[in-house]
């Protein structure tokens, strides 16, 4: 599983789900915290439609954390003030980097959580789709009255 996909599941997945994975990891391995969860900033880069060149649109608050598990580094970062989530992502990232057994064991659960995230997004899209509109121009409206 690509890192981007894995981290999307961990960031958007419920806290309970991510904590359940971390609890397993903590019970099986010694985890060294290299950098305690701390707040920092990420600068957002966007591209404008006119020039197709990048510009900075503002910053976003994140919480980041680094750990080591079985000699492998792991890094966690998530938007907002969420130290527990940042730690959890770092631990899971380290386990995947080290290719430890839980990485393979968790695969089905991760895919199930991804399915729930997608469903949530489809539901939100379905609610927005209720507001679909067809505007008609009223050209010739007066003529119809004649």
């Amino acid at each position, binding site marked *: 599983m690509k890192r981007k996909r894995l981290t999307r599941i961990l960031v958007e997945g419920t806290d309970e789900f991510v904590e359940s994975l971390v609890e397993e990891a903590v019970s099986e391995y010694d985890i060294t915290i290299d950098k305690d969860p701390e707040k920092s*900033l990420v600068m957002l880069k*966007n591209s404008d439609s006119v020039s197709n060149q990048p510009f900075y649109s*503002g*910053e976003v*608050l994140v919480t980041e954390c680094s750990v080591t598990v079985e000699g492998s580094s792991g890094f966690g970062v998530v*938007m907002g003030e969420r130290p527990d989530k940042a730690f959890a992502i770092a631990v899971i990232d380290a386990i995947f980097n080290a290719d430890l057994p839980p990485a393979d064991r968790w695969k089905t659960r991760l895919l199930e959580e991804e399915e729930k995230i997608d469903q949530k*997004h*489809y539901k939100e899209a379905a609610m927005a789709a209720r*507001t679909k509109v067809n505007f008609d121009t009223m050209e010739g409206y007066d003529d119809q009255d004649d």
Partner: protein
Amino acid sequence: MGYVAVTGGQEAIEQADNLSLFYRTRNVSTLLNPEMIENQMRLLVDRVMGEGGLYAPEYAAIALKQAEGDPLEAVFLMRAYRSTLTRNYYSHTIDTGDMRVIRRISASFKDIPGGQMLGPTNDYTHRLLQFSLREENERELQNFVEDYGFTEYVEGEITFPKVADLLREQGLIANHDNHEEKEEPFDLTRNKLTYPSTRSARLQALARGETGALTSFAYSSMRGFGVVHPTVGELRVGYAAVTIPYPFSEDEEDGMYIGEVLLTEVETINSFSQNDDNNDVQFSVGYGLTMGQNEVKGIAMSILDRSLETSGEAPAQDEEFVLSHIDSVESYGFVSHLKLPHYITFQSKLDRIRQAQDHKSSNEGEEDYAGTK
């Protein structure tokens, strides 16, 4: 003349803080939880985040509580807090074409691929004060949310093509040169803005500009002090995924997903002109992007973006005039500072007016003498 500092007043300042707290809380029956602001004042929260240049809804809500609802003060607090944090990462370029759209309208085309969605808006509702809000029932609202949120799980469209891209395909607006090397954007949080600026600097300044100031300047252009009066090609509101490069990898594309940001993106279509490169006649486009749902600011930004590309004598065409006066922390701070002690400055003005009066009265005496009244 330089500034002269004042001292003293510590006790009074502490008491002023206490008095502010007293006025904020004296008639309170229910304490305002920042979570209430975050969830029930979302447009205000979005505005404060955008003008503060910091996407952090929870902190914008705290800032608004602390500022007793004053958006300018709340933005100041956000900027001040932001300055205490380190910036460790830059995101990959966010693709707004892939955003999860919750609102998408076009004033130019009634039929756009994927259709128009009104989304959450009050554009078409009567502006009647809803006195029923005084007696909103929590249980009824919960039932509404549950009923409204119940939808069948249907795999449908979440992302939609951009109208500007469709126009570009038809040759109605200029094509991008996708092979063109990407320039490193200017960062006005680290560098002083100088004029003429670069396009990236201008867009960054507009994106964190004050909503009211942007709207006023854009309005001036449409009213006649300028040449830009566009049609909204597309206004979209949605959630865009943010990724950053993985710090333990040398592969730039090995990204980490960090969450989604709600953005408003506006592309306005303006008058057409001849393309210098191929002599085709094409529409010119204005671009606006704001944090959260802040549609008027997005439209205003796109107008000013376009206006600053035109030449003329109108204020909205003057880059230095527009960009130097849209930042709320700078304008709010500068106007506010007039409240602080200026005793020495004013004393020198007093000295000068007295000297002038003395000079005038002595001159008047001479005139009287010359006139032999």
